[in-house]
């Protein structure tokens, strides 16, 4: 098997692996959440619940795909498609291993940030076209959250970009051969982690779809596979954020040579996925205004200071 960047085989494998991982995460998350809440989670289907995802998929595919008569049909239908395609497109620039990837783009970081911003359209359109007060509130919150979080999400990455001297994710990984950026960019890492949680609408920042407050937020009116697209896109987004953290701060595929690079990448990324699930199990959701205040008044200045200090250190050591 000859894998190289951009060959149809590689692209197909990446697409397949990402979607399968996203679907499997539904089961993995339910199991892990169960363990962390002193339950067992779903363990009846297949070996230790491994076939639960098949059951879930059969269920979600056979559900009635209903469009409410009061909804705006066009944007209602395209909204789930946008988020799914945008999240999958982001994987184009992720370097999984030296020979595995879709494109070797020299604007990788910018591309990922741009795609993350486009994802906001899906959430906003979905909530707006549903013509439902909960959905509208959810998309309103999503829009405000996106606006406040993408600012310092980008700024927190600039430290890494400055250290590596490149926007190319592949070069950023190779620049970490002598030391992962988690050490010089620890504050940047923490800020990006928080922004990543907010970006992928995971607890504790799942304010756009807070079940206890506003039903299911922007996807209240969705059913069947349209809901499934939102659902799987959330998990694929989780994989994306975990991969990004791995690439930017934890040396991507780098690791001792007794395992192939792709395995190192998978181990690191899965560690972060498990951490995201742990956060969902442990941390309560903040109030809406607390989130905004925290973002604008604390994390934005902190990320700017981090960038400033990084710049000073780089200039002084040259």
């Amino acid at each position, binding site marked *: 098997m000859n894998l190289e960047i951009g060959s149809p085989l590689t692209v197909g494998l990446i697409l397949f692996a990402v979607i399968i991982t996203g679907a499997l995460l539904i089961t993995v998350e339910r199991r892990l959440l169960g*363990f*962390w*809440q*002193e*339950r*067992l989670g779903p363990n009846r289907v297949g070996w230790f619940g491994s076939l639960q995802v098949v059951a879930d998929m059969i269920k979600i595919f056979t559900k009635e795909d209903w469009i409410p008569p009061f909804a705006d049909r066009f944007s209602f239908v395209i909204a789930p498609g946008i988020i799914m395609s945008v999240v999958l497109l982001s994987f184009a620039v992720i370097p999984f291993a030296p020979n595995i990837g879709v494109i070797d783009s020299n604007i990788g970081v910018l591309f990922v940030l741009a795609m993350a911003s486009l994802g906001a359209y899906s959430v906003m359109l979905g909530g707006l076209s549903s013509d439902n007060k909960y959905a509208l509130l959810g998309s309103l919150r999503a829009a405000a959250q996106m606006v406040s979080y993408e600012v310092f999400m980008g700024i927190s990455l600039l430290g890494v970009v400055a250290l590596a001297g490149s926007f190319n994710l592949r070069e950023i990984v190779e620049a970490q051969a002598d030391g992962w950026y988690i050490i010089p960019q620890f504050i940047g890492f923490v800020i990006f982690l928080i922004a990543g949680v907010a970006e992928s609408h995971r607890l504790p920042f799942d304010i756009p779809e807070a079940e206890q407050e506003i039903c299911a937020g922007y996807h209240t009116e969705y059913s069947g596979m349209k809901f499934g697209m939102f659902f799987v896109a959330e998990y694929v987004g989780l994989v994306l954020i975990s991969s990004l953290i791995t690439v930017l701060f934890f040396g991507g595929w780098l690791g001792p040579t007794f395992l192939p690079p792709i395995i190192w990448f998978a181990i690191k990324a899965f560690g972060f996925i498990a951490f995201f699930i*742990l*956060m969902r*199990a*442990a*941390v309560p959701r903040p109030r809406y205004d607390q989130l905004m205040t925290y973002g604008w008044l604390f994390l934005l200045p902190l990320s700017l200071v981090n960038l400033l200090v990084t710049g000073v250190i780089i200039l002084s050591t040259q």
Partner: protein
Amino acid sequence: MIKLIVDTLLSQVRTLWLVFMKLFQKKDTVEYPDQQPYMFPRWRGRIILSRDPDGEERCVACNLCAVACPVDCIALQKGEMEDGRWYPEFFRINFSRCIMCGFCEEACPTNAIQLTPDFEMAEYVRQDMVWEKEDLLINGTGKYHDYNFYRVAGKKIEGKDKGEALNEAAPVDVRSLLP
């Protein structure tokens, strides 16, 4: 201010750590169909009709259970044997109505109707929740092993005249009391 921020952050980290350690704790889940719970003998579950030690039906069709039932789920019809015993011609319990309150068991003068610790009574068809006498009758005495109503009661049946029951005095001949 700094202390507040640090305390808040450490509290979050501590939360995450404590929840993570739950991974190695014993789980609270009881895996029910594989792991059956202990059912206490006096649990009020599925209703049965018991037989006396001689193997006859205990129920004498007195209707007290049907009267006591708060949801009217018991229906029965009295019949009479040739030897004078009463028995239910049919005895029907609608378990889709039954609330397992146990009033019927308390009302029963012959210990015939009893509640058992069985609770697994789910059915796919609602009509299957209606149990007839054949379904309710068991081949044992239930909770009371020695009790036999006709042996202790004053009711006259074939082979046992008035006054012949256990601990029963012979009936007083009122005419002999005349002066």
